[in-house]
C-alpha cells in the first residue's frame, strides 16, 4: 500500500487526512484514484508533492512503491 497524506485545504477536499492506495502508484494512477475536484487541485503548480518527506521537483515523474508515503501540500498559510 501507498499512504497519501492531505495537508491543509486538500484534506477538506479529500474528506479525510489520509488515504491508502495500492502500490505501485504513479502520478496518473494517483489522480485517477482521487475525486475529480481533488485531482484537478493537485495538478495546480502551487500545490507541492513530497515522497517520503522529500519534496519532488517533477510531480509527473512520481513513482511510489510499497510502504511509501506521498504528501500533497497546498501553499502554506502565512501570517
Amino acid at each position, binding site marked *: 500500500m501507498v499512504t497519501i497524506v492531505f495537508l491543509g485545504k486538500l484534506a477538506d477536499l479529500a474528506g479525510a487526512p489520509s488515504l491508502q492506495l495500492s502500490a505501485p502508484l504513479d502520478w496518473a494512477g494517483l489522480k485517477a484514484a482521487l475525486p475529480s475536484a481533488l485531482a484537478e487541485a493537485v495538478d495546480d503548480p502551487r500545490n507541492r508533492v513530497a515522497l517520503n518527506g522529500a519534496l519532488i521537483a517533477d510531480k509527473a515523474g512520481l513513482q511510489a512503491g510499497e510502504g511509501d*508515503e506521498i504528501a500533497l501540500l497546498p501553499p502554506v498559510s*502565512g*501570517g
Partner: protein
Amino acid sequence: MRDIRLLHQMFIPGTLIGPFTQANPGLGGVCTFVGEVRYDQGVEALELTHYEPLTLPGMHELADRAFARFELMGLLMVHRVGVLRPGEPIVCVSAAALHRRDAIDAVDFCMDHLKSAAWFWKREKRDGQWHWIEPREQDHSDLARWQA
C-alpha cells in the same frame, strides 16, 4: 546554544527565554519575539497543522541559514501546533549575539520565514465554522526583503 522545537501543548515564553539567555554567557544582546493568537473579531480558535517530515527539518534548515547569515551565539525557535485559543503564544524566536543588530535581524529573518515559508497550515474557527487562512501579500513582501 540552539533549541528548535515543535510544541503540542501551551507554553509560557518566559520559562524558555530565561534559561536560553543563561545558556549564552557573554552575550551583548538578546532579542525575542513572541507571537500570540489575536482576539480577532469572532475568532474562537486557531488550528495549526504541520507535516512533521518537512516542518521540523524546515525549521532546522532555517536555523542553519540564520547562523550562516548573522553572527549569533544562540538561537531559540519554538512553534506551536494543534488547536490554540486567543491569547495563547504560537511562536517564540530568541536570538543571542554579541551585537544588537545581529540579534534583532536574526529574529526578524526567522519570523518572516516562519510566517510565510515554513510548513504550517492554519485555519481559524469563527461562529463554529473552520476557515483556512490564505497567504497574505504582506508576508511575501516581508520575505522578499531577505533575497538581496
